């Protein structure tokens, strides 16, 4: 039996707010979370700006014992999951726990633990590491910790597909609930890789902006690394109705593809196949979409290629779409990006308002669609897409509808 799959809760930890409500307030006002890094030293960094989760105090959410077992990436996922479950007003007793999946995307897992551990070993010549080094840095820790902290005993695993991790995670959770393999799913993504080591790695690729992220704009200079987490509660429509839950949105389609070509350069054909896959899976025609939450990294190559892919997928209708990139405000939260952006897409539907693409200086001739520059726009939305395209040529697109 095929089930309709609805969203009944969401939780967010982001560079522009530690709750979903704060996140939306700032997204819709075009507030930037991008600034000089404070959680790592910047004196040896060529690019010092990041979108970090500011003033995050784990002791506000965890006791001492819990806090030491959790890398920052898992702290984010658990805090976002708790908020989402509270928002959905759902409890996991009477067998529901065993029928609830936990699928959390992350790009690289516990990088803070890894970076600090290796620094101790290589630089400080320490003789031993903390006993929880491995369980804190493992890539499934954000998912496992959510299952433990929230008492979820169904299928639980991590999805790692770089910048598309969260979108792949949510897509798999959607298909699992749709097929009846699970009644509910707690799903999303988390990443916290603003460490000295990873930032030097990004710097070496020469794709980072020195000032800020300007997706689709002329004179854009590249991406800005972000961090955070977003988690949503999915359940079958019947289950949500039975318990009289407030339905926030419906996930209707998921498309994925791989380029099987270049490791780094985006591929229009791969993007189109994922976009068309999401529309087909959701039985949507292109003209039914009003809003596309773009991958929009702010690199020269992504934004031009994504524009071409949207045009090829939507034809004439591309010019009527509102398109925006949250990365202009929250940077690229990597394995969390797809979840933060799907929540933004669902919120845009709920609030009938498209969050803007800020830092927009003016059109680039190669990016000639409507990117909702600099100011939010009121817009009734029936259906929308959220795009994620990852290094390694991995593409994932979710299609959502108004409830």
């Amino acid at each position, binding site marked *: 039996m095929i089930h309709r799959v609805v969203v009944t809760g969401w939780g967010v930890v982001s560079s522009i707010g530690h709750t979903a409500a704060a996140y939306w307030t700032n997204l819709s006002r075009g507030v930037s979370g991008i600034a000089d890094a404070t959680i790592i030293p910047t004196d040896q960094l*060529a690019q010092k700006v990041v979108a970090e989760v500011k003033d995050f105090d784990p002791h506000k959410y965890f006791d001492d014992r819990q806090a030491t077992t959790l890398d920052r990436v898992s702290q984010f996922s658990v805090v976002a999951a708790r908020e989402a479950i509270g928002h959905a007003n759902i409890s996991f007793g009477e067998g529901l726990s065993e029928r609830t999946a936990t699928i959390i995307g992350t790009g690289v897992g516990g990088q803070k633990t890894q970076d600090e551990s290796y620094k101790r070993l290589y630089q400080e010549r320490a003789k031993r590491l903390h006993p929880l080094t491995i369980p804190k840095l493992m890539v499934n820790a954000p998912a496992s910790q959510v299952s433990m902290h929230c008492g979820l005993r169904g299928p639980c695993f991590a999805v790692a597909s770089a910048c598309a991790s969260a979108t792949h995670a949510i897509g798999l959770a959607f298909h699992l609930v749709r097929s009846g393999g699970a009644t509910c799913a707690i799903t999303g993504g988390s990443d916290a890789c603003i460490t000295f080591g990873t930032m030097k790695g990004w710097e*070496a*690729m*020469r*794709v*980072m*902006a*020195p000032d800020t992220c300007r997706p689709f704009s002329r004179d*854009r*200079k*590249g991406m800005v690394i972000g961090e955070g987490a977003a988690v949503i509660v999915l359940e079958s429509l019947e289950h949500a109705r039975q318990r009289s839950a407030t339905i926030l949105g419906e996930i209707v389609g998921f498309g994925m593809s791989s380029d099987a070509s270049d490791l*780094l*350069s985006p591929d229009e054909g791969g993007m189109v196949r994922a976009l068309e896959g999401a529309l087909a899976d959701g039985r949507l025609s292109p003209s039914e979409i009003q809003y596309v939450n773009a991958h929009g990294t*702010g*690199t*020269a*190559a992504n934004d031009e290629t994504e524009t071409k892919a949207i045009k090829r997928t939507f034809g004439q209708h591309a010019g009527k779409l509102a398109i925006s990139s949250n990365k202009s405000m929250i940077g690229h939260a990597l394995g969390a990006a797809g979840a933060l952006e799907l929540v933004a897409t669902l919120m845009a539907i709920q609030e009938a308002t498209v969050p803007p693409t800020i830092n927009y200086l003016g059109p680039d001739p190669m990016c000639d669609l409507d990117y909702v520059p600099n100011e939010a726009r009121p817009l009734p939305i029936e259906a929308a897409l959220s795009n994620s395209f990852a290094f390694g040529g991995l593409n994932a697109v979710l299609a959502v509808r108004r409830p």
Partner: protein
Amino acid sequence: MDDVAADVIAIIAKRVPAEKRNVSMTDRLEDIGIDSFGAVEMIFDLEEKFDVQISYNSNDARLDLETVGDVIGAIKNHLAGRL
């Protein structure tokens, strides 16, 4: 050809297809198949070899260094500036 020029040419030649490895000073990087990521790798090799910092963002419209001779000139400027 001096040592710096020879070293730069060897580094560039490593990044181009075998049939174009006979690199000359006037060759344009684009024409011999140095794409944007090839340029990033080439600059990494040059920085490691000569212990210099070369500012380069692959999002800028085009590489300031157009020809093989430009790269050699830039490295020589960096080395002169360090003395």
